[in-house]
């Protein structure tokens, strides 16, 4: 007879094995610091609105007291799909606006592939290159 004091949670409740977008972004944020010997850093900020999560990726130059917003992505509580735009700029959830068509990334692999493209894009190289020059000047 239940008395209301039992633990009703399943025996196998544990962390999901799917790598969340935030973890992938934090890894790349840390990698930027390693690659530039700390001259530049990556930074990820998370904002929530209802059940939407927005992850914003910044490049920071600590010695310049400077922060550049490189891109942002959005996702729900489950983590995937991740929504972004082809340019990696402000993403638009399907129910919003008339902006660029949202890019839907269904799996961690698809998200990693997209992220690799963004981090290797000419735009990212321009930002990183200019900031490193400025820091070393």
């Amino acid at each position, binding site marked *: 007879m239940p008395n209301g004091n039992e633990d009703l949670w399943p025996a196998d409740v544990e962390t999901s094995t799917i790598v969340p977008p935030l973890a992938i972004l934090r890894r790349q944020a840390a990698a930027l610091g390693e690659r530039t010997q700390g001259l530049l850093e990556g930074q990820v900020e998370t904002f929530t609105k209802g059940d939407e999560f927005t992850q914003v990726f910044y490049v920071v130059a600590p010695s310049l007291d*400077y922060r550049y917003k490189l891109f942002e992505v959005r996702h729900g509580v489950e983590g995937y799909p991740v929504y972004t735009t082809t340019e990696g700029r402000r993403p638009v959830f399907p129910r919003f606006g008339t902006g660029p068509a949202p890019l839907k990334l269904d799996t961690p692999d698809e998200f990693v592939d997209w992220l690799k493209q963004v981090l290797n894009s000419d735009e990212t190289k321009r930002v990183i290159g200019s900031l490193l020059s400025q820091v070393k000047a």
Partner: protein
Amino acid sequence: MTTFLFWNTNKKPVEEAIAALVEMHMVDVLILAESSARPVELLERLNQLGKQGFHLTFGLSKGIIVFTGFSSQLVHPVYETDRISIRRLALPARLEILLALVHFPSKLFWSEDSQAFECTELARQIRIQEDEAGHNRTVLVGDLNMNPFESGLVSAAGLNAVMTRDLAGRRFRTVQSKQYPFFYNPMWNHFGDRHDGPPGTYYYERSEHVCHFWNIFDQVLFRPDLVNRCPSDGVRILTRAGDRSLLSEDGTPNTRLASDHLPLLFELDL
């Protein structure tokens, strides 16, 4: 007075018009959006004016270029995106201010709702930079691609920009127990034909039910702490560059010879 000029040049080859404006109004800070000019060549042209040494400042926002009539080190960017550049301007023996420079996406690509959301994010970033700077002396200037009466400009969580100095003097308003700081938006004064200047900065005519014809997409907003440092006639929409009119015969921006936006000039006593 420190004189600022903002112009969305719409990728037009208007280097000579820019030089004429800088010379005519003794501009100290030149801010360009959608410039097609090669920055170094424009810098050389500005320095041929001879009155002061111009400098090209560092910044990574693709659509925004800033030249100064003083050391570029005095305009230090602290936060940028591809369309926003927030900079600290600290001139010797003058008040330090934050300059938030903006070129928002066109209505051709973004809905009014999306533009309003972007204003909320911009307002948040400005508050963060004000906290870090330890003051609220912010000037926001740019092509917002929105009129002063649109949600992104007037909503509390957006830029919270009001039409009179008195209203801005209240400093903030409270909505749902949260305080939102005001901006003063002097651009409201520039609508219509009761004054000498043009009725807006951008003209757009289409055969559809709602059409404002003249729009004021190019705006400058001041935090309350700076309102009294801008003279009442200290914000002007310009229609001439030297001896050249920027308007067509019908009084709208001459898009054949110059930009579809008119330049904005403002002065601040820092």
